[in-house]
């Protein structure tokens, strides 16, 4: 007894239940009878709908595949080879569109020229009170059987920025993947993640030190990846491109401005643990990278760097959940370490009487060589489906800063910036989250900034998959 007959049977049985109920005279019975009738009709309608769908599918099967084999069973519909349902998946929304809403309330010290002491001065965010972060619009989809495309637009008050806009190969095979356009580089672990995927309201200090306020190395270029045919995850990647983001600069020239290479290794450890580790190398070149420094008399001076930057990154991520089911409880640990060398020439351009003993407007140029490093480690525990809590510790080391002939002109701080952060967040569903974060930030020499951040992250529309 299979599909069609059993539905008919169900309807029949339901009818006979209705008939029995009618035999009893008391009020409760009548009430339940009405209920039963309602359900009966619902079932009959459902059964009829099923029959109709079945008949349609059968007719389609007969017209399309008259020779469809029906090796076993006589009352089984011979439609196995025909897709009954319409093509489904996220591509039903073609293209997939989603919008990320993110905003925050910040309580911190007012530091207009916020930067990290001992490191190349990149202007960091000092916005306090209520504000919205970038609103991200994500549009993606299959282009054809060979390519997929995605663009992420970051919308701010008076501008729309193209965060990412890339195409990705689907049909090369042999483990090879090609990506081209503007994308977040595959180096490190956090680099590819957008702010709404972060486990804390802001980026680790080391990402700010490495890549400036965007906390990610973005590239206009091409990426080639190869996944080894091994049972353990082993992936190699190479990228080259314009290299316009810090620590590189945009130099309008033929050829390329940056190279990146990386290898990732990962696997499961039992059913409850999975991990990934990686090693990355990034070379960028800077052409007149400028910053405001101070000379030994405290007078502002302009420093200009020309040269190459080599960045090495090591990353490790470990995720645990009971039985490998992260829904109710899970733990995530991640840590990254970087080492970076700036090598080239530094020029000090006098503003006023800076870069003494030369006259105002003169330039002192010479060797420049810094070797700096830093790391962070964080752990986030989800203890119920809704609640998570996490701790993070950041530390950097300004390391060796050899300014050559400018050592007597410019002041650079020898400092170890530190920050400790704690957060707790609540998620109503996978699509909405509210986070409270406290940090004691000692990233600036002589300043202890106690920061409170209340942040929301909401996403609507197509729900894209997230990376490990």
């Amino acid at each position: 007894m299979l599909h069609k007959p059993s539905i008919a049977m169900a309807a029949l049985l339901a009818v006979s239940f209705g008939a029995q109920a009618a035999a009893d005279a008391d009020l409760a019975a009548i009430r339940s009878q009405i209920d039963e009738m309602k359900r009966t009709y619902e079932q009959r309608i459902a059964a009829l709908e099923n029959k109709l769908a079945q008949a349609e599918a059968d007719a389609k099967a007969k017209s399309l595949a008259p020779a469809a084999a029906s090796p076993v069973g006589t009352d089984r519909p011979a439609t196995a080879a025909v897709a009954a349902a319409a093509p489904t998946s996220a591509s039903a929304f073609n293209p997939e569109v989603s919008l990320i809403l993110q905003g925050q309330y910040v309580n911190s010290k007012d530091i207009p020229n916020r930067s990290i002491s001992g490191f190349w001065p990149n202007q960091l965010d000092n916005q306090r009170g209520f504000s919205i972060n970038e609103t991200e619009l994500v549009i993606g989809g299959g282009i054809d059987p060979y390519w997929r495309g995605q663009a992420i637009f970051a919308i701010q008050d008076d501008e729309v920025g193209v965060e990412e806009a890339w195409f990705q190969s689907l049909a090369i095979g042999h483990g090879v993947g090609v990506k081209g356009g503007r994308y977040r580089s595959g180096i490190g672990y956090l680099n590819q993640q957008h702010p709404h995927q972060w486990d804390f309201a802001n980026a680790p200090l080391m990402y700010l030190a490495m890549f400036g306020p965007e906390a990610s190395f973005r590239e206009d270029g091409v990426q080639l990846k190869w996944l080894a045919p091994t049972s353990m995850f082993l992936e190699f990647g190479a990228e080259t491109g314009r290299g316009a983001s810090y620590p590189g600069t945009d130099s309008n020239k033929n050829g390329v401005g940056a190279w990146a290479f990386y290898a990732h290794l990962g696997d499961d450890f039992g059913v409850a643990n999975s991990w990934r580790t990686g090693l990355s190398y990034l070379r960028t070149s800077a052409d007149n990278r400028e910053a405001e420094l101070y000379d030994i008399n405290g007078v502002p001076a302009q420093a200009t760097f020309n040269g190459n930057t080599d960045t090495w990154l090591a990353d490790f991520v470990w995720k645990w959940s009971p039985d490998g089911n992260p829904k109710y409880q899970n733990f995530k640990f991640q840590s990254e370490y970087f080492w970076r060398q700036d090598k080239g020439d530094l020029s000090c351009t006098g503003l006023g009487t800076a870069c003494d003993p030369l006259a105002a407007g003169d330039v002192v140029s010479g060797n420049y060589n810094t070797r700096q490093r830093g790391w962070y480690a964080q752990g986030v525990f989800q203890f119920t489906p809704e609640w998570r809590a996490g701790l993070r510790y950041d530390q950097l080391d300004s390391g060796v800063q050899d300014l050559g002939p400018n050592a007597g002109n410019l002041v650079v701080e020898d400092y170890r910036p530190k920050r400790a952060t704690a957060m707790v967040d609540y998620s109503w569903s996978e699509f909405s989250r509210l986070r409270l974060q406290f940090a004691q930030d000692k990233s600036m020499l002589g300043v202890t900034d106690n920061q409170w951040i209340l942040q929301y992250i909401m996403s609507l529309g197509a729900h894209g998959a997230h990376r490990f």
Partner: protein
Amino acid sequence: MIKFLMTMLLATASLPGLAALQIFATVPEWGALAREIGGDKVSVFTATTALQDPHRIQARPSLLAQARRADLVVATGADLEVGWLPLVLRDSGNANIQPGRPGYFEAARFVTMLAVPVVLDRSQGDMHAAGNPHVQLDPRNLFRIGEALALRLGEIDPPNAQAYLAGYQAFAGKWQAAIARWEKEALPLRGVPVLAHHDSFVYLANWLGFKTTGTLEPKPGIEPTSGQLSSLVARQQNVPAKMVLRTAYQSDGPSLWIAEKAGIPAVLLPFTVGGTAEAGDLTGLFDDTVRRLLKGLH
């Protein structure tokens, strides 16, 4: 670097082909079905276990490594794996298993979907536009899925096409007898009202004729709230459910709470292969499901 990659690429291409067809099953039921049909002609990797919520799987590195080597991906479809599978497929560098290619198989395409939403709105919870994706719990669906899978296996691996068809026929013969047995055993379940943690048993209820009168989740994918649980207990006065069902991967707290307040049994069903010790294969899955439901009734 490029030269190195090319060398590695050539080295891979010249490796001797692996004997068995490599199958990547997203959930245990399709892994089990592929084993029934493919026998020793296939080597099956199952990406998840019965103790893992199939909606909440992460794109783990090990899954990428397995997808890279797969000849065929057997997925449920209907957006069940939307949170991780698309990413795994795209980043696998495996052209053969991309959607639309013969190496990508979606079971839900071959059955009549139930609970297809009329209106798509996330305010109604985590909805599946194509309908409820838990199609494996109506064993009759496995005929259509199994036959389509056997044909697909034959398409990818033509020398063994006959073996796959024979494997399917052997399975179908066994399956038909088993279904007749289960339907007979489960007759007392007809019309029985039950509660469920999540809409996991729509197809099972449709097959056996029991009725899900409420879910502990207020909306699909939203955790049970105390308000929802209390209202279900209050409803017991008028619509008395006989038991409360959950899967092996769902937390037992809400079910046990209702069970205690309403004085009805909380029944854990295996949901898929491996969900209980007895559900070691597809036959065991339904044997144990029917047995546990009947036990809950008495």
